């Protein structure tokens, strides 16, 4: 099936199998490997991307369901060579170790801050419940999101 999607600001058209998952489309067809696959069953959140501004676990969706949509992956978050405050926050506040969960974590946090620009620590924890991390201990992820909230508020 032919689909047309806008990924990180650029439209593209592809002929895809109906059973192709969005995450496989992004990684294997569009070559955007910053979106990772962790659990394959919509638990870990490593594959989270933004579809029409909404955080979506891209293993829960078929590529054909994204026809006509605007998608932002981790590769599309930095603008003009400047890291997004969330990316800067995850770096400076040490919200990552192996980095595998990081892209999904950042995009979930992106939606969280879009809905609530100044979340409390409790709200950050609530907002990121759908993303798992095996390395960092999470505490610095909370700090990274606080950093971004502060930086974006300036």
């Amino acid at each position: 099936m032919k689909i047309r999607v806008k990924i990180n600001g650029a439209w593209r058209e592809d002929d895809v199998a109906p059973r192709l998952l969005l995450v496989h489309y992004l990684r294997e067809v569009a070559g955007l490997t910053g979106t990772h696959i962790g659990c394959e069953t919509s638990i870990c959140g490593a594959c989270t991307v933004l579809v029409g501004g909404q955080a979506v676990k891209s293993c829960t969706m078929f590529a054909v369901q994204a026809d006509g949509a605007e998608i932002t992956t981790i590769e599309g978050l930095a603008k003009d060579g400047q890291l997004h405050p969330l990316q800067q926050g995850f770096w400076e506040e040490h919200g990552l170790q192996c980095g595998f969960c990081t892209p999904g974590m950042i995009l979930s946090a992106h939606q969280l801050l879009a809905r609530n620009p100044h979340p409390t620590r409790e709200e950050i924890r609530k907002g990121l419940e759908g993303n798992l991390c095996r390395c960092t201990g999470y505490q610095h992820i909370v700090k990274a999101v606080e950093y971004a909230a502060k930086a974006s508020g300036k």
Partner: protein
Amino acid sequence: MPKCKYDWPEAGDRGLIGESIDRVDGAVKSSGRARYSYDVHPSGMLYARMLTCPYAHAKITSMDTSAAEKLPGVKAVLVIQPVGSEIQWAGDEIVAVATTSEAAADDALRLIKVEYDQLPFLVNEEDLSKAGDRAKPSAEQKSGDPDTAFKDPDAVISEGYYGAQVITHCCLETHGSMADWRPDGKLKTWSSTQSVSDLPGQIGEGLRLQKVDIQNSDIETVCQYIGGGFGSKFSPDRWGIVVAQLSKQTGKPVRLMLERDQDLEVAGARPSYYGKVRVAGKKDGTITGWDSDTWGTGGMGPSGNPPVPYVLEGIPNQLKKHTRVNTNIGPSRAWRAPNHPQAAILTMCALDDLADKLGMDPIELLKKNIDFAPEILRQAYVEELDKAAELAEWKKYWHPRGDKTPGHLKRGLGVSIHTWGGRGHASTCLIAIHPDGSVDVKLGSQDLGTGTRTVIAITVAQTLGLPVDGVNVMIGDSAYPKSGASGGSTTVGGVSGSTRRGAIDARDQLFAVVAPALGVEPTQLESVNGRIQVTGDPSKSLSWKQACAKLGVKTIEAQGKNPGQCKLGDSGVGGAQIADVTVDTETGLVKINRMVAAQDCGLIIDMKTAESQVYGALTMGVTYSLFEEKVMDDQTGIMLNPNMEFYKLAGIGDIGELVVHMMTGPGYDERGVIGLGEPPVISPGAAICNAVTNAIGVRVPTIPITPEKVLAALAKGGMA
């Protein structure tokens, strides 16, 4: 001046070393540009998948792959275990296919017909009475006179049953690799591995066992980024050999990453340990005897014995028996601090019960008996226990067993101490200083995410007097100088040792070139703040770039090695942890309020990455204490929860507040660099078990401490 040429700088003169420095790979990871093995995708790449055995113990009686071979998109079918093979666990690999798409691989696997004769199996070992001849006494040790110690009429004796389950590693990136066997006969693999330098030799050996001819020198392994290892990714595994065979067979690059269910079934099992433990003590708290009868499983292979009594190894009058149970659960693997978390549970919970029987504060009991710990760590343990107690507000929140306040929410605190080795591994590096002032460091070791790149950059930058970004770190490729695997918390000690020595030698070569221009002897020079200057006299100096320009067209190259001259590191660390929990006696749910860790690891290179290891370890500890378990079904022999919905990891809301304190300064720093990755994951289990007991007044004997177990313990005699 340091006493030995390569020594770490003295306190006050360490510059970057020990500061909180941002990791050098933060931007590449937070922007999605870090390429993991799973991300490498050359054009024409094929996808490989494996058909696995659905039975825990079986013999293959027939196999038909013909329909799969005829399916469009199938480029190769490789029988891994032929008819007649005896399979010892469900999930073991039988046939692999390489296809043009992942979907085609799934279709192909469905067309392969394999028949089995099922054989008897055992997959659960906690109830030893059901193990039959699968239980094999494997060790018995006696010291002193335990009989007399336990018969002493004045002795206070506590007795209990404790245990830790089989868990998996559940790395977010599954196991696997991408292999490219090129027409020139050379094989390159992008492998998710903790052992880059050693992998080509292991892959070569595995291929030759399959009668595939290749020399180790024709194999290169790369691992730039890895999504977790935790001890489960040292070997290429069977799938690492299969993927190379498939690449050779098809003439195409082939990717074979395990799917999550396979990964949980076969690619990681931490051995279980259960045990009946008796401890004897005097009324003043002095421990006088230890008696343990333990058992556990590491699958069909050996799993070692739990090192009990843990930390307080010098307890007199010991009797220890251990029984190994062979089970069809899949092979065991090293799991972050192998055997130590289980030994901590067997020991620290037993000591906590003794303290209760004696009416003593468990911290006082540990301190009273600290002379049974290795001498080098005794002082550290006392300081760490005091520090942890202060940070956890022990005096305010700890109480004798059982929270007597009204209501269904009971709060409790528990303590544990731990130890680990962590001596730096063998590491070789190459340091190059170029005429344009750029500096390259190359070595084969990998960065598991712990911060290896950052530690190398800091070490070399500080030695050469440069900023961290003045050093180009190139690691994770077997083409670089051989440097150890990341296991046993040995990487930071290994790579800091080799790069410190290499950087000093490279710097001295540069001093020799520059000295005539400054009209002094090379020994009078120092490299600080981006300059080469006469020691203590910035007026006689050259900028780093000016100095390097004096090299003309020649690049300086120096090799660094660990171990080597001068003592840059050591072995043996300690740590104390306190868990603060609230237990809901109506639902059985355990909530972590706070986890406190006081940890030593010698000289710290980067405080930020060091602390981060402890934060991460605490969470991993909460996870195995409360949630994780490889649940095996007695009826079918299969794993019931090979997915991340039911193989639970702690989420961001489950971990409470984490408080980390690194022990530094005199008594710690002068020991040099010691590894840290594993030790802080040891104590959480025991500390949480003891905290739950402190809260509800009755022990939940085994982890994971599920609501069901809490309610069962309360029903038997708690305070519900």
